[in-house]
């Protein structure tokens, strides 16, 4: 068995090698973890709340899990796609800084023109990766610093799009559907089998639904 100090050193070194050179990746993974823990906390809060009847918990817990799934999936999918795209913009040489352009010109990939830089008409960006060039070490530092910046910008843009636009729209739709379904049930099931808060009006119920604690802005 490995001793604890060796395990701890391994943990520190893994974090360093995995996220040290790639800040955007760290932001995505900790973001996903944040969403997951936030949703898990909501579920636990409902599960351990003695004031909520068992019947209501049966409705509220799956609802929270559904909310959490929308948050996590939307954040992960949208943010990673945009981050990967930003990353490929730089590694394919589509987007570059003047230093990277000069390097690509020296390497015969870009051609300098009066307007700026161009590539040959049959050049396939999707198959090209600057990092695979044999003389990549010459530009490594400048390239890494530019690429990390673009990656983080892409990641931030992706998280704004997913957390502040896509998720609230989807959640509003999902919540409205759940609310309609519950209200329909409230009108259908006899009062002695009620699975929802008793003795409140539809208006109050809607207000409670809007007040519901979980929300993208409360992401941990």
């Amino acid at each position, binding site marked *: 068995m490995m001793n604890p100090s060796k395990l701890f050193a391994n943990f*520190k*070194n893994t*974090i*360093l090698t995995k*996220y*040290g*050179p*790639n*800040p955007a990746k760290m*932001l995505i993974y*900790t*973001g996903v973890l*944040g969403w997951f823990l*936030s949703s898990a*906390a909501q579920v636990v809060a409902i599960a351990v709340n003695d004031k909520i009847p068992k019947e209501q918990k049966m409705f509220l817990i799956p609802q929270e899990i559904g909310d959490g799934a929308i948050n996590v999936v939307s954040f992960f*999918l949208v943010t990673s*796609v945009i981050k*990967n*795209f930003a*990353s*490929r*913009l730089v590694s394919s040489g*589509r*987007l*570059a*800084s003047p230093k990277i*352009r000069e390097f690509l010109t020296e390497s015969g990939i870009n051609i300098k023109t009066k*307007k*700026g*830089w*161009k590539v040959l008409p049959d050049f396939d960006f*999707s198959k090209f990766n600057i990092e695979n060039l044999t003389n990549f070490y010459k530009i490594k530092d400048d390239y890494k*610093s*530019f*690429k*990390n*910046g673009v990656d*983080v*910008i892409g*990641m*931030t843009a992706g*998280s*704004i799009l997913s*957390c502040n*636009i896509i998720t609230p729209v989807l959640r*509003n739709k999902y919540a*409205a559907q759940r*609310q309609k379904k519950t209200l329909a049930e409230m009108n259908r099931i006899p009062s002695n089998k009620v699975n929802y808060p008793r003795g409140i009006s539809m*208006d109050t119920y*809607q*207000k409670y639904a*809007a*007040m519901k*604690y979980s*929300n*993208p*802005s*409360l*992401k*941990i």
Partner: protein
Amino acid sequence: MASISSIRNFSFSRAYDKFSRRVSRAALNMVGSSENLPTVSNPKTLNAVDWIGKKLSSAENRLILGASALLSQPFIDASNKEVDAETRRYSICRTIAKIIAGTVTGYSIRKLCIKSIDAFTKSVNEIKPDMKFKNLRTLLTPTLKYTADELAQYKNTLGTILALGVMVFTNFLIDAPLTKGLTNAFTKLGGIKNDESK
């Protein structure tokens, strides 16, 4: 037909990575012109890109998300026609309160945790004679070789992981009461009857 071994070897993350790369590749061919490749040549922009890559931590990221949330989410709630007008107004107040509470606590806790991690991730040369807890100052310092930028990102990562653990509790201890207080204040300002304040 898929064989059993291909099913066994299926990995969601690999499949997702492949999908994401395909989407990126398709989009890549649509950006800019091959005759005049987009080049970031403005020195200020280049410095900003460099700064973002090196210095932007999860705390600043949370702040940006919060600020942009204030500019978008209340309007999304306002345009939600599936609820009645009063519920809509109430949900706008609630959303603004949640964004403010979540951003303030999220940013502060992340920042504090990253600072705390920094205090125990010193190299031997950084330890001064007047420092307290000298023995613990290198507790979180990695044993492998690193650059200054990599170490900064390492501290950000550890700080963020610590912050996530802390926020499991503060989500209930600070965010929830703060959100409630702010919601009550906003609904009062908006002249909405508030059941929660009763």
